[in-house]
């Protein structure tokens, strides 16, 4: 495309059906004990 560069291959919609295994790390448990953002996490699968 000339005007748009898409930089990722998002899977969020797909995970509506496949996610929820819960094996990932608790988000507030890692480097931050005062902010609980999930955006910085990765899927462990």
């Amino acid at each position: 495309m000339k005007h748009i560069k898409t930089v990722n291959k998002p899977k969020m919609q797909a995970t509506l059906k496949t996610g929820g295994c819960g094996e990932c790390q608790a988000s507030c448990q890692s480097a931050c004990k005062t902010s609980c953002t999930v955006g910085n996490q990765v899927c462990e699968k």
Partner: protein
Amino acid sequence: MKARIHKFEQNGTYILLDINSGAVHVIDKMIYEMMDTFDGTNDEAVLSALEGKYPQADLKEALEELHELMAAGELFAPDINVPPTFKQTGLVKSICLMIAQDCNLRCKYCFGDGGSYGQERAIMTPEVGKKAVDYLIKASGPRKHLEMDFFGGEPLMNMKTVKAVTEYARQREKETGKKFKLTMTTNGILLNDENIKWLNDNDFALVLSLDGRKEVHDAMRPLAGGQGSYDRAIANFKKCLASRKGGDYDYRGVYTYLRGTYTKNNMDFTKDVLSMNDEGFDILSMEPVVLKDNPLGFTEEDLPRIREEYDRLTEAYMKRHREGKGFFFFHFNMDLSNGPCVAKRLSGCGAGHEYVAVAENGDLYPCHQFVGREKYKIGTVDTGITDKETSQYFRESHVLNKEKCSDCWSRFFCSGGCHANADLFHGDIRKPYEVGCEIQKKRLECAIYVQALLALEKMDDDSDK
């Protein structure tokens, strides 16, 4: 209507986020302006809105590209509702052990009242710690991966219990097939050679607290006697880091984080992050203090200055990356393609339903920050969670159930903000702390920008090959 896109400009780069798919598009200025009008169905309105500003042929070409994105599900993706993968009730898989509700520092911004959490100074016994291990194994049901953070106060003040609990957890791993990931958050004052070796031998991830520059750190983190703690902390942290070089101590494994807190006294915190990096640490975190009615805390008036500082930090981060001296910064780390599933984005931190804190006496609270807020005591290590109503309220307090979050563009990245902060400011975990939200949104824009630039660099490298 719920926001479906978010667009922003960061240092001359125009970025379009499709909220419900997570797609990130780097766009030109023309598309940036078209998105003020374009809703997927109104090409003619876009053409007339920008008539005379851009050639019609270019606008039509750009509209075709936007429709391509829509066809690929990467623009105006459908709204997300609570999926069946988000189980009705949570399973606790992570605990925070208040190993010592006592501390050898008197940090001026401490949310735990110098470690005591408003209670009497006390340390956890090995018996309570072992019961916490058993509680976690039972509460986690089929979940294999479990986490325990040894926290305080200062956990190194109670190594007897740390060692006993660790030994017990390793024994129970063998008996149950569970896998414990262990973390310790420490101020480093007691991080001597013996402790370092023991923590390394037992695969502890470490979160080391340092606020950056010596003068900043010393002003905020004095010893109980009032003297600055920087020199002792940094010397021990360096020794610790050196002992871990070459091992399997990476970001996703057994990491060694240096984390700091910035306050109103150091809104130039880029200097603190760079100071930490200059001292040899490359896995870093720096977070805003959260205080109410306190001169060290932030108000809305501080936001322009804080936003400006994140711009500065972003450019410094990219500069070091380009010079081959890059570092990890927790809030800029974001996997745009392989991020968490929607269920996780709704669970958020999991406080109260997937994550609980165990006070030194064995009482359970939704998280470490709630320890000592008596109405939030939800059970004990003996009984498990008995206040199931509160636990369920936390479970259901996700972004789609909070009025201010459900329409916010960052809803699937921030997880709705910290419940403890919402409770502190509004007495209601469903009313987010606004200043925190604004800082979070700025950080997210910076993170998306950083990851977009890194992805573009990689695309350029790949096309050169």
